[in-house]
């Protein structure tokens, strides 16, 4: 019953945000919001950019790639020298080269894959100056690309798609900062720690126990970690740690924060192209898939753990292995599905210990390309890529030149969309094949049998989709996994972003074809079904063989332990 109301309140809160945050974000990117202009204008002055001057898609992409490269370099250097910097009360040593590379690539690409335990590896300087910074920057970059692609649809015969510097500055300043700051206060009020004072030692006179407890500036990092669909926590166990996620309410708030921007961006899209119905159609495709995934995954987690059943314990509270008492089974499953259907990757439970079908829900949520609703920005531009493919297929079926929002979808657009849709499955499957073929890859998993294979597949899927969640049993802090994972994340990010920007440029340059009776409708139930079909077929067909060797075999192995 509690779970029912959790969902009801979540749907209401997200529905209101969809409408109002969605239209607010449109106003921000159309330059109609100015209340922080006193902070915004000096930034443009320092950058030497004229906010009125726009860029072609090539210059936009160039700014984005170079800015990301500089961000990776700075993050890498901070981690490499953290032992010599201030704000290091726990005296953490500097991070090694392979792990620094992986972590820098991870936070700049909005992945937040973590091959380290936060409280035992990172200084406060690194957590704040390297990691929290990228938790603001990387979602802004993702949203900027999504907005650029939306402009491709909304503009006519335009050579430019916006100004990258202005888009990310406005996104960080007007959207991420105020929301994160407010949420940070709530997290701390509920019990998240926020201090620079280092560890605390306590003594319990009842049982004679003495504990030294790591602390840190956690609460405000937690807020942007969820809001920006980042997912990289201060502590090793992420949102399962009571200092990150202290109560049932913060658990709900986390789920809300990580879903709110990706869903609301569909309204922003509808508003900017002048047809809310088109935004609502994409929202419907997202919500239907997301709802099905929440349904079967929480049902699976409510069924209990096979090992506990065989050990003779009657279970009425679901699968409790790796879950926190204060959240319970179904809320943990909801958190997991929300986190993997966006590009967040935070975890309030041990995903490795989920039931086979619960784990299947998390893994396939990422494999569908993270479009339901996907990451901040990346969800919208990826589902727009799928929508272009759906329009193309629909056009083939009825024998007309396909159009989306009056823009003719021709060979060039379909090629770019196809590239954007196929890069991720290719890189994930090729790297998984390499990892299971060599010793360094097979040395990774903790669990035996199909679950061990799933750990490898999950790790490379998570990084290739810029998710960042993990089946924690995989020992990822090795040279092989650090180096390969870094490549996986960069390709999974930029090999989709750049085709998306090229698509934006190509579409913006086109004129609009007037709508006629023969135009294939792209704002009705038929189109929603077509988009869902494209998402499921691309994810399902490419990954089905791999999934059947992992969670499906595991589920079908009744009574067998590995």
């Amino acid at each position, binding site marked *: 019953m*509690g779970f029912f109301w959790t969902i009801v309140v979540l749907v209401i809160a997200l529905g209101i945000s969809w409408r109002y945050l969605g239209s607010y974000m449109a106003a921000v990117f159309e330059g109609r919001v100015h209340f922080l202009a006193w902070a915004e204008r000096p930034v443009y002055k320092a*950058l030497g950019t004229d906010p009125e001057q726009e860029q072609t898609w090539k210059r936009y992409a160039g700014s984005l790639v170079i800015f990301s490269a500089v961000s990776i370099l700075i993050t890498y250097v901070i981690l490499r020298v953290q032992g010599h910097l201030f704000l290091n009360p726990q005296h953490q040593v500097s991070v090694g080269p392979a792990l620094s590379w992986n972590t820098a690539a991870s936070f700049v690409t909005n992945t937040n894959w973590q091959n380290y*335990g936060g409280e035992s590896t990172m200084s406060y300087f690194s957590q704040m100056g390297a990691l929290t910074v990228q938790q603001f920057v990387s979602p802004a970059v993702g949203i900027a690309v999504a907005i650029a692609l939306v402009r491709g649809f909304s503009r006519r015969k335009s050579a430019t798609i916006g100004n990258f510097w202005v888009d990310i500055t406005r996104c960080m300043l007007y959207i991420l900062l105020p929301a994160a700051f407010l949420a940070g206060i709530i997290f701390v009020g509920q019990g*998240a720690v926020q201090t620079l004072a280092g560890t605390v030692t306590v003594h319990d006179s009842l049982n004679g126990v003495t504990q030294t407890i790591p602390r840190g500036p956690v609460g405000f990092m937690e807020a942007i970690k969820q809001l920006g669909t980042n997912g990289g926590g201060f502590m090793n166990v992420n949102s*399962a740690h009571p200092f990150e996620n202290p109560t049932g*309410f913060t658990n709900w708030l986390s789920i809300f924060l990580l879903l709110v921007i990706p869903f609301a961006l569909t309204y922003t899209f509808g508003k900017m192209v002048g047809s809310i119905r088109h935004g609502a159609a994409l929202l419907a495709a997202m919500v239907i898939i997301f709802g099905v995934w929440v349904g079967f995954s929480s049902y699976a987690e409510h069924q209990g753990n096979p090992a506990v059943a065989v050990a003779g314990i009657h279970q009425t509270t679901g699968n409790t292995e790796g879950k926190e008492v204060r959240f319970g089974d179904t809320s943990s499953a909801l958190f997991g599905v929300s986190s993997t259907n966006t590009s967040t990757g935070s975890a309030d439970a041990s995903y*490795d210990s989920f039931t086979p079908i619960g784990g299947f829900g998390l893994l396939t949520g990422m494999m569908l390309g993270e479009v339901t609703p996907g990451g901040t920005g990346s969800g919208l531009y990826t589902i727009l890529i799928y929508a272009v493919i759906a329009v193309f297929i629909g056009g083939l079926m009825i024998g007309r030149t396909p159009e989306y929002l009056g823009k003719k979808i021709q060979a060039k657009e379909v090629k770019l969309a196809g590239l954007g849709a196929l890069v991720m499955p290719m890189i994930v499957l090729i790297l998984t094949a390499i990892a299971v073929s060599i010793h360094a890859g097979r040395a990774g998993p903790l669990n035996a049998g199909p*679950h061990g294979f799933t750990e490898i597949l999950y790790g490379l899927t998570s990084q290739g989709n810029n998710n960042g969640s993990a089946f924690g049993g995989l020992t990822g802090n090795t040279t092989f996994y650090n180096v390969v994972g870094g490549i996986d994340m960069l390709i999974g990010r930029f090999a989709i972003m750049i085709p998306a920007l090229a698509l934006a440029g190509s579409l913006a340059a086109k004129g609009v074809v007037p709508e006629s009776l023969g135009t294939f409708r792209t704002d009705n139930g038929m189109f929603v079904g077509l988009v869902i079909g494209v998402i499921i077929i691309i994810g399902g067909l490419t990954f089905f063989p791999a999934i059947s060797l992992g969670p499906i075999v595991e589920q079908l192995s009744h009574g067998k332990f590995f």
Partner: protein
Amino acid sequence: MLAHVRRSVILAVIVLVFFGFVYPLVGTGVAQLLFKHQANGSITANGSTLIGQNWTSPKFFHGRPDDAGPYAANPKATPPASGGDNPLVANGVSGESSATSLGPRSKVLLANTRQLVAYWHRLGVNPTPDLVTTSGSGLDPDIAPQDAYVQIPMVSQATGIAPPRLRSLIASQVHPAQLGFLGSDYVVVLQLNEALARLR
């Protein structure tokens, strides 16, 4: 190209200063001003109410077995030596908060669960699922009310307090789900044991 690099470096420095320092430091200031107790770790007389401890005496209610049975630092000793109640040693993993990461069809998980069932039976407790599985953090401070009720025979025998008094003690310590529906009902083991100590 050069203009891109120059702008990238300048913006990187601006965000480093603003989001790397101003944001978390102002946040720390506000947090310390408004919520000093929470921001510093919810520390009470006998420890943090948010960080689990290892309770080994039958005179107290025990938490989840994150640091007991097969996950103890020295599981061969009788009773198994505790993992040290160190938040940086959890579920037998040294160095950080940690879950076991054992899959649902793991032979190791099955063997460990059987050991934990036997561990509780030796203490005279008929365990619930929470008491034979480990948490996500490795330092779960809470148990469900039912997890406390099943420990009444053990605590009653060791302390001589009658079971009905222990039942009402547990009932008085239950934190209901927030707003009635967010999360689950739970008992903070430390608070329950502090109340138990006052009863003696």
